[in-house]
């Protein structure tokens, strides 16, 4: 192994390639946004379930936003959606389009649906007039966050 061979142009080229690979990998890794949409939709379901069901009893909620302490302005902006279904009735608020977006998400790949909302759905059993009823809660979030 002679000195000329060690410090050749090839060596610098290899360093350049290694540097390029590291820089690209680092930018791709740190450039990814932490996705909290699904966590927020799960939390929204918990908040609504706590509001609509108190110790197993179904609560007739008049104004969801006021009674459940949800910010109506933020829901009107279109970043969140919820739908609480019980018996033949349902109460919803926010961006209705999320039901379609979350339906489409199931049929499309992750890359093409990355701008769609993420949704969660859970059902609960509650007592209403001593009758067991099924309470379905669907919630979605499309919060991305960004520079301001």
């Amino acid at each position, binding site marked *: 192994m002679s*000195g000329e061979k*060690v410090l050749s142009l090839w060596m610098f080229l290899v360093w350049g390639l290694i540097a390029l690979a590291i820089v690209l990998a680092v930018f791709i890794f740190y450039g990814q946004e*932490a996705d*909290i949409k699904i966590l927020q939709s799960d939390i929204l379901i918990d908040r609504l379930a706590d509001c609509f069901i108190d110790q197993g009893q179904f609560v007739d909620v008049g104004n969801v*936003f006021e009674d459940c302490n949800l*910010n109506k302005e933020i829901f009107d902006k279109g*970043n969140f959606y919820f739908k609480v279904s019980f018996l033949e009735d349902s109460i919803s608020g926010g961006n209705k389009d999320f039901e379609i977006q979350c339906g489409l998400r199931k049929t499309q790949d992750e890359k093409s649906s990355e701008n769609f909302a993420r949704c969660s759905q859970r059902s609960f059993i509650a007592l209403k007039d001593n009758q067991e009823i099924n309470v379905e809660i669907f919630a979605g979030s499309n919060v991305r966050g*960004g520079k*301001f």
Partner: protein
Amino acid sequence: MSLFNNKKGLDLMHSTIIFIVLNLIFFLAMFAFVARTGSNVALYEQMYAKEIVLAIDQARPGTTISINVEDSRGLFEKNLVEGVKISNGEVKISLKKGAKGYSVNYFSDYTFERTFNEVDGNLFLKIQVEE
């Protein structure tokens, strides 16, 4: 010792030393780059904003949320309380003076009071949830 008496051997040793030094410089530079990128302000702003949003969305009145921000203490250029804003459904984190920050929406309609305090040398952001 014959290596030092031999001109060819001396050249070989010099080039080997240069090779090792250059390699060290290269890998140290790469290490510094990765470490610096991993601890940049924008990353902390996004991390804190989202962490706070998730915490306050599920918090009930009377709750105190405590977040250890010691890791990023050196990055805070702004007054700490000024750098963290929680109001009107939006958490805004801006650690550097004159630079843009990061904001995320939350859906909870409670009021949030934030303070900073130091416990055992660690800096904590405390958020009090009020009705």
